[in-house]
């Protein structure tokens, strides 16, 4: 005797567990009055350099800042960022190519969120995998450096779609690599219409005022309970 298979409806989101954790984190961040920004990009686009500079500036502005840094194998980034004197913790993911909400939650275990005002989460350098995971952040920056070419958004539309702001980094090299800024802007708008874009160079300081102003304005809004709408 054999029975014919029956169809059982399930209708469950595969990432439900992560989404629930992320939602709980977002609520904790809101309750503690901390604004959370995550950074995604390819390896080497300048996340750590930008973050080092950002931590210093935000501290100088009198904000209580901290950072969580994801990396596959090393703790080099955390050491670099610790030079800013802000609290920094490395999340070594081993073979895992992205951060998830659970890793963030565990890393925050021994931190008092109420002491913070601005928290950065640097994801593992990867433009594919991090797009599936909500980390509970209020805002996500996607970085693309001029050396990567202006068609990055067309190659990775999904990650651009999960991000809120695009930062074009290493603008000091734009001329040397014949970077077509107009084309890059067009490509970003094609995959994510209306996306806020800032061009900058950590090295020369180009665009950094605009970036810091934008960031400070967003961070201040946390006081009136701004939350990421997803």
């Amino acid at each position, binding site marked *: *005797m*054999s*029975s*014919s*298979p*029956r*169809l*059982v*409806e*399930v*209708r*469950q*989101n*595969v*990432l*439900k*567990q992560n989404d629930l954790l992320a939602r709980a984190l977002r609520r904790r961040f809101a309750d503690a009055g901390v604004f959370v920004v995550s950074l995604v990009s390819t390896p080497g686009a300048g996340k750590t350099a930008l973050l080092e500079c950002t931590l210093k500036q935000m501290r100088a502005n009198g904000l209580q800042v901290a950072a969580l840094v994801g990396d596959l194998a090393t703790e080099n980034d955390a050491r670099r960022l610790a030079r800013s004197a802000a609290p920094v913790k490395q999340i070594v993911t081993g073979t*895992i*190519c*992205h951060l998830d909400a659970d890793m963030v939650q565990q890393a925050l275990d021994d931190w008092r969120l109420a002491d913070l005002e601005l928290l950065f989460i640097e994801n593992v350098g990867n433009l*594919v*995998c991090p*797009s*599936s995971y909500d980390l509970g952040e209020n805002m996500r920056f996607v970085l693309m450096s001029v050396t990567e070419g202006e068609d990055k958004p*067309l190659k990775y*539309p*999904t*990650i651009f*779609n*999960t991000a809120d702001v695009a930062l074009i980094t290493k603008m000091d090299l734009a001329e040397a690599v014949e970077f077509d800024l107009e084309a890059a802007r067009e490509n970003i*708008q*094609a*995959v*994510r*219409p*209306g*996306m806020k874009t800032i061009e900058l160079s950590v090295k020369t300081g180009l665009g950094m005022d605009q970036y810091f102003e934008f960031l400070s304005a967003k961070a201040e809004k946390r006081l009136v309970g701004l939350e990421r709408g997803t």
Partner: protein
Amino acid sequence: MHELSIALSIVELASEEATKRGPARITALHLRLGELAGVVKEALLFSYDIACQDTPLAGSQLIIEDVPVVIFCRRCHAEHTLESVQRFACPACGELSADIRQGKDLEVVALEIEDAVEEFVT
């Protein structure tokens, strides 16, 4: 590649569902996969077989329904299926739109379950 962890989550979710229904063997799993889910179909299919080993899903088939991106066009006041994720523009009038109504899906829709019996005809 994060498809293996996605596959493990799928198998875990399905195993729980199956366990609720007593001893049974899952022969197929139906999944909705959005074009903006950030998951590569081929990598997921490959990972699925590995993730199924030593579970009630061993040997089961993963049936994927591709879900295209649907945007809402303000100018047409209607939903439209996107022609390409490289361009979020209304296929009817060309207006750009970031109002995504569908395409991020990653959902286990249904399981095909065979109740445990003495012998199986394969």
